[in-house]
């Protein structure tokens, strides 16, 4: 599973992070080193082992579907770089 420059381009698009073309080789080298580190896992036999997604075997707690106090809209909209009344403003998406 050797990582290539093509992969770097693809995952940077998936992660929505621009990578400066001059940096791509360096990023590739460092990511390869990390993948080499984790490669050790592949030699372990995990046949029949249940994946562990959570430290404690607890299930998702549920609550009644009742309205609860929620966040103050004005206060939260103010945190945005651009907002207007009830909306966050982003560049136009639909022509």
């Amino acid at each position: 599973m050797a990582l290539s420059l093509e992969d770097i381009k693809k995952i940077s698009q998936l992660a929505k992070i621009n990578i400066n073309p001059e940096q791509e080789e360096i990023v590739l080298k460092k990511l390869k080193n990390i993948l080499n580190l984790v490669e050790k896992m592949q030699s372990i036999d995990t046949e029949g082992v249940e994946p562990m997604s959570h430290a404690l075997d607890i299930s998702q707690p549920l609550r009644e579907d009742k309205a609860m106090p929620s966040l103050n809209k004005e206060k939260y909209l103010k945190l945005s770089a651009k907002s207007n009344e009830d909306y966050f403003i982003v560049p136009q998406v639909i022509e």
Partner: protein
Amino acid sequence: MFKLTLKQLSDKLQNSEISSQELSTYFLKRIQEKNAAINAFITIDEEKTIQQAKVADQLLSKGDSHVLTGIPIAQKDIFCASGWKTSCASKMLDNFISPYDAKVIENFNAIGAVNLGKTNMDEFAMGSSNETSYYGTVKNPWNLEYVPGGSSGGSAAAVAAGMAPAASATDTGGSIRQPASLCGLTGLKPTYGLVSRYGMIAFASSLDQAGPIAKTAEDCALLLNVMAGHDSRDSTSVDREKENYLEKIDLELKGKVIGLPVEFFNADLNHEIKEKLNAVIEVYKDLGVIFKEISLKNSDLSIPVYYVIAPAEASSNLSRYDGVRYGYRAENYHDLQDMYCKTREEGFGEEVKRRILIGTYVLSAGYYDAYYLKAQKIRRLIAEDFKNAFQECDLILAPSSPTSAFKIGDKTEDPVAMYMQDMYTISTNLAGLPAISNPAGFLNNMPIGFQLIGNYFEESKILNFSHQYQLRTNWHKEISPGAL
């Protein structure tokens, strides 16, 4: 006064020998004197701190107080605190003033503790040296050319330099215990789910856990009494009866069993650290503790497993930083996609981007089974090793860190070398177990620590063993040159 423990400061407040305003002013002044050199704090707000101290003084004068009422505590900048800048040491949140309190902050406010300021850390808690902070490296108070460890390096340095009597911190792979070890302090990572993650900025949600950094185990118990507790706003918060973590601190240890993992005490362990650990073992033997070899046979897989699971969860958690609702937004962009991509390119630092990219890769189509699922399966094997070990012993003793503090800049070019710093701490996060780092002495004039790892929810036992050790040793009383 900076040498006093929380217990001693509390006695002074309760006996009206000093007011919270005086105490808070004293520590603010020490921060003012020392922060330029140590860089432990990102945000100080004297007005807010003194305001809280005034409220605490009223509670104290009415006799309506808790043991930590009026005590100023430094809060890691990962905890949202209403009206405070909460940056997680990232450019991405440099302009973020939190509109609400994290549960940990709520708990401290509820008993009248005072927020002394927000401490520096590795960006989004990703790092082991505090060198990834947008606000610059924190210096180790034992030697300003050395790192304090990370990611809670600011919290540890603040306490070690006597700028704060104690601090909150968080631990995803060792971020409480490793800086505590490198700064000569006591740092406790509780069982996963014991302290609410509500309002604690997420890194790897199945591993993140908050805990205290302080001078002594007794102080950690006092802080954990405030920090722990169920919270319905964190779906992984455990609903169990509240414990008093001081209650069992004085129990005798005669006949108790400590396990020594053969995989940690092998030829790879630095021989000087091994000597220090042997001295720790002798202290416990004198107290009647029995030692037994145990095996954590998959422990060498902890770092590989962690560097799949933690980046995978981080890539998902950090997708929220898109420049739309809060935080940084790039200035120049031509459409929505470009806005996302430039915001994230400019707002995140190198290490954070690296982990998001790795996480994106291991979760992407075609690689999920080989990396993420495989890691989750080995995570179970690692947790089962501990389960088996605890059938034979009360606690497990381990090194906290493979080295004492290293020089600033020594490992920044080699992420993998940096990751190895957490080789003895990561497995407990994967299993979700509680563990503490206690001071164990010095190597080349820099502190080192040892870990005690317990079974689920056995914080009381860990604190009991640590306190008994600290009653018979003086390492935790040593004062760093940076504090003088």
